[in-house]
């Protein structure tokens, strides 16, 4: 180091720098400490109950966790969750019997419903409308159709007793694979020390939620520099875009067929819940031709003037969930009437 202590001015410089660095570190530490306190006191952070893979290779939450999920930087959405003994966020335990009428609602984070108090979930709303049914919400953030089909097969005994199965299918992301493999890497990653630190230091959990850590993540993964390099390069138009889309469409359909073959599909009591605005016509046509029933909630969402999604987040808000519940309840009512139940 060239800031050598050779003369009085250098010594003074060195001491000034030492003071500056020490005080900067001290102030940063104090600010972080205060911020951590504020984030905890005002519960600005969101909680993510731990996940695991059970003996049936089903990925789900560790039972018995309660807490609050928060959306938005300024607590725009604050909701309570409750992980039941089966490992899903729900107001009830899943105990199907032959006597009761049960509906299984399976899906990803939209069905898991961390954006709504668990006692006011879509399932609860359906129960309120239909009065005599029990709704079991097998929702888990990250589930695709492979997860869902595997779940039904793995919990065959439970599902044999359940009267109706509704699978929420987000066409754009849920048909990426034709066979189920538990995502052990994700579970391992979420159980790693880094993520444990993130979950315990609430300021980090909060920063991660609002996206302020994204640039750092990009830097660590090298994406930050990649973007800069890309910016200098000329844009090239992918002339095969439409062909690629066609290939994707075909691939999704094949994956659907593969999942049905591998895990079985009880057409009499299984219905897909989807948004036709985001689903390819070829897939809908295939469903129609082959007797795969589906509920399309697009017209209901289009007919409302109120927003159906949250702020800072594109998950359904309370109004969106009310509409979904009504669509499902109407469908069940119609089906019951048809079957004379």
């Amino acid at each position: 180091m060239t800031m050598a202590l050779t003369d009085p001015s250098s010594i003074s410089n060195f001491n000034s720098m030492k003071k500056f660095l020490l005080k900067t570190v001290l102030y940063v530490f104090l600010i972080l400490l205060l911020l951590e306190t504020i984030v905890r006191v005002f519960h600005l952070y969101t909680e993510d109950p731990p996940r695991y893979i059970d003996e049936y290779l089903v990925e789900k939450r560790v039972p018995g966790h309660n807490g609050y999920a928060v959306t938005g930087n300024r607590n725009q959405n604050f909701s309570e969750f409750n992980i039941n003994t089966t490992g899903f966020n729900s107001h009830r335990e899943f105990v199907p019997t032959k006597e009761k009428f049960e509906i299984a609602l399976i899906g990803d984070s939209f069905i898991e419903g961390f954006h709504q108090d668990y006692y006011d979930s879509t399932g609860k709303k359906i129960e309120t409308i239909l009065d005599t049914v029990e709704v079991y919400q097998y929702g888990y953030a990250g589930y695709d159709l492979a997860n869902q089909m595997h779940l039904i097969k793995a919990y065959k005994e439970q599902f044999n007793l359940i009267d109706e199965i509704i699978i929420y299918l987000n066409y754009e992301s849920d048909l990426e694979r034709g066979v189920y493999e538990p995502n052990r890497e994700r579970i391992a990653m979420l159980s790693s020390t880094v993520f444990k630190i993130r979950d315990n230091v609430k300021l980090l959990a909060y920063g991660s939620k609002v996206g302020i850590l994204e640039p750092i993540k990009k830097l660590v993964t090298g994406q930050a520099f990649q973007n800069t390099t890309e910016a200098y390069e000329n844009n090239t138009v992918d002339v095969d875009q439409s062909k690629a889309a066609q290939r994707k469409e075909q691939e999704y359909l094949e994956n659907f067929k593969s999942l049905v073959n591998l895990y079985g599909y009880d057409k009499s009591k299984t219905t897909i819940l989807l948004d036709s605005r985001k689903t390819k016509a070829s897939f809908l046509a295939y469903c129609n031709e082959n007797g795969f029933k589906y509920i399309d909630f697009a017209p209901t969402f289009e007919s409302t003037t109120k927003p159906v999604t949250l702020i800072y987040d594109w998950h359904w808000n309370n109004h969106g969930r009310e509409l979904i519940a009504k669509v499902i309840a109407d469908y069940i009512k119609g089906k019951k009437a048809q079957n004379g139940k």
Partner: protein
Amino acid sequence: MLFNSIEFLLFLPLVFFLYWFFFNKKTLVQNLFLIFASYLFYGWWDWRFLALIFLSTLVDFFVGQKIYQNIDIRKKARYWLWVSMAFNIGMLGFFKYCNFFLDSFIDFFQLFGYQMKSTWTLRIILPVGISFYTFQTMSYSFDIYYKKLKPTNNFVAFMAFVSFFPQLVAGPIERASNLLSQIGKGRTFSYPQASAGLKLILWGFFKKLVIADSIAPIVDDVFANYHTYSASTLILGVCLFSFQVYGDFSGYSDIAIGTAKLFGIELKSNFRFPSFSRNVAEYWQRWHVSLSTWFRHYLYIPMGGSRVSKLKSVRNIIVIFLVSGFWHGANWTFIFWGGLHALFYIPVFLMGRNRMYAHNVIGENRLFPTPIEVLQVLLTFTLVTFSRIFFRSPSLTDSFQYINGIVTNFAYEPYVHPMGYRMSDFYVLLGLFVFYEYLIRKDERSPFKFKSKMVRILLYTIVVLAMLLFYDDGVNRSFIYFQF
């Protein structure tokens, strides 16, 4: 490289550390390292344009010598000054104004029915900061010509002066007498200076990330869809734009001044709480001070300033405001904006009130402003904000239609944020911001000047917390003045 980027977050501590611990032995080494850091900072955006900075440096260094060698032969000195101006203004003209002149020329002929095709329009990018560093190098030549400065023989110091990264891309535009003299000497680390620098950086980031960036989506929405909104929303949109552009540009300046302090260099203040100006003249003594000073020294005063007849002074005022408008951008909207400011300024000048508030602030020696001062501030804010309709709109037609919307659709309707956010959050934020700026209004360089350490730590925490509370990763985080 943007100040508010992750790259800068790594770049600054690294450069700071190397500057003070490895390259601080000799001034020459310090300056060479500053040049390297500055060129890296600028080249991160596009290294090809580094050649322009280097060329501008080379020309003005050489011209400065030539002017000084012929300082007593005014004709020759003037010739060399013209060389500097021709080069710098030529460069600006090519990159910034060429398309504007071509398009205006075509539009003009189309008025008479001649249909011309714009085959000459250039497809070029505007080099970031070109308006700032060309003005800075020109000021060097001007100062030598006006015998206010001796040229430097130290090319390395001159290179560091032109490219000094904290103020390279958006100012403050420094005069050589201030910045070059500091760069010519060795710097020693000073704790109070570095500490003040960090505080300014923090405050600058608050203004940029919290004030400017959080309201940017609202302003973008209102100006993009002005034809669908009623007067209340249009007024809200342009008022918020006033806060946005202030937060954005003064935030940048604070970060630049603070960063320079970390390297032992003092830059001139660029903003002195312009929102509290009591007339338009005071506003221009507080808003983008370095540019106003530049125009005053190198355009207004050489034209005679206010020492000529009233009529000529008015002409001079009109000229500098029109040129200032044109400096901001190659668009008639900026020229109109400048013209409007001239209109607002002239009555103040004719009444002899243009220097009235040069040395005091609102609420001087008082806790609260007087009712008269409040009215004056509101009137000034209204005028300045009105002019910003032209500043923000993409064309003159849009500006007039925006104003037309205010006049013809004079109704109130509650505004709904494009993302559905609570608008009250932003009103509370801006209210607190104005209140806090009023508290610190006497010293723009010490935003956290409170005796109690506890209060200061609490304020730092609140400022960082606000950055988290209003962070939105969907917002375009570039600085507005980069486009100029």
